[in-house]
């Protein structure tokens, strides 16, 4: 045996960090500092995926103050759970969700 992987252990779900600033600032600040920035990584606060009449997905903050269009369709579990935190890439007009934390644990961006 050259290498043996031990059985994986359930490490639990470590607490995700809380976003440090309001969403609009988190999206605008990197662009103001470096105007040539194409993509802004962002950690979003509590929110949920909502759908418009054509089936396009939007991320909406829990307080309803911010609604951002989501890239792709946000399938599966992403649509059916409160997202306590969401890690995403903001391209200036679409939010590409990388992962989210929910009561089901971490959810991948593909649902």
């Amino acid at each position, binding site marked *: 045996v050259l290498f*043996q*992987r031990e*059985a*994986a*252990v*359930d*490490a639990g779900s470590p607490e995700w960090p809380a976003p440090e600033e309001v969403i609009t600032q988190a*999206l*605008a600040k990197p*662009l*103001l500092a470096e*105007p040539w920035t194409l993509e802004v990584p962002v950690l979003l606060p509590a929110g*949920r*995926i*909502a*759908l*418009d*009449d054509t089936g396009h997905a*939007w991320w*909406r903050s829990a307080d309803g103050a911010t*609604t*951002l*269009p989501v890239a792709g369709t946000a399938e*599966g*579990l992403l*649509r*059916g*759970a*409160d997202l306590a935190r969401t890690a995403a890439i903001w391209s*200036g*007009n679409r939010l590409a969700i990388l992962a989210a934390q929910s009561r*089901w*644990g971490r*959810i*991948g961006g593909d*649902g």
Partner: protein
Amino acid sequence: MAEANFDAMGEVLARWVIGAAAAPAASMWNSELGDEPGEAELRLLALSSQFLGVAVTADPPAGLRTLPDIPPLALPTVPEALRHLVRRILTATKEKRLRSELLEFLARRGWTVHPGDWLPATSDESAPDVYAPWLDWVDVATSTDAARKKAGGELTVENWDDYWPAGRKVALLELRQRDPDAARSLLEAKLVGESAETRLSLLGLLKIGLSDADIPFLESIVTNDRAPKVKALAASLLGRLGRGLGAGEDAAELASFFSVYTKGLVRRSRAIGFEHPKTATQLQRRAALFESVDITVFAGALGLAPEELIAAWPWDADRLADTALIAMIARTGTDSLVTLAAETMSHSDAEGLRGLASLAPRLAPEKRWQLTGTALGAHGCSFETAKAIAGATGRLDSPLDAPAGANLVETLSSDDAKPSDQIAELYALGLIASRAGAQHSLERLNGAGLLQGDPRLDMLRLNAALDDNGAR
């Protein structure tokens, strides 16, 4: 300020579209753009890009809707440490039937998959009943009729429409198990208003606790229902109650493909001979008749009781006829006749055992397991066949001690074994072995040269690592 800038952007972009200079339209940035026209256009491009990126996002349309939470199921999801194995197996098993077997195996062990790894598709009726809340959630997600809520309490005529389809079916199944007459009465009242597909699905629940009390209702469906498939199901259920409805002419025509004679000098017994069809058309006609005629009526046309027909049938002489007869028994035979046919088939060769597998869904779980044990003792029974007979039971303690196990180890140990060999057989082994059986099998197969990380062993590894929370 931002609104004024945004309003000006419309004019700027319109000018660029037609190839005109836009700087004169951006008066709010006059000082930043400068006096040199070419430089002003470049500065305007940079400023407007940053403005649009920083200060403008799409306005959400009115009427955004959020879906309800995906409901938790009655069973816990598999431990986090094993989810990667479940995901790998789900990814590798494209076939719906194989995926259903994994779900069935997990449910029997007291687990469900994580909704991040799998969610049912609409009308995915192959999933175990424990997933009914997710099926209804998917219905909600794809429906605009979001106002309908899941009803609580016992299913009744009054709250029938308050249920989503999967939840209603489970409620009806529970009612049928508890009170067969009440469930039938509910179907009598509500079935006619459902689609043909739903009628077929719900009528199938009458298989549970089927009794003579169901006969008038089934006969009314055979007479009045509009869908041929629903009529056929009702007719087959009547057949199981010994009330076959097959047309006498069809049964007589089918019987003409066979002859009954007496054999033996001392212990005289009846035997059936084949009047072999001479043309492909005759063969097709015989197959069609097998699919439409009831076993009791067919046996009667031969002058035999159904039990005598099974005893007199020359098994293995005509495989096509064997398969067709088994299908006829599975479709229309009484429970006792199905058991008799299954016991007869359990001593067959590999091909005959496939007939047993098609009868297995009609048998009680313990009977299926008993016949699987009998079949596995024979050399012709593979783990795949055993799985088809027993289902994804996860109960076999020493699978590799069976002839199928010895054959598997020998094949995998041979010098010309390939990495793609025996995938289906190893998957079946992983589904029928008990946890201890899976652990022992892994040790033996590792000893035979298979790597621990071999993806063919994923199902066995999942089985070996998964606690048994109690069979369902």
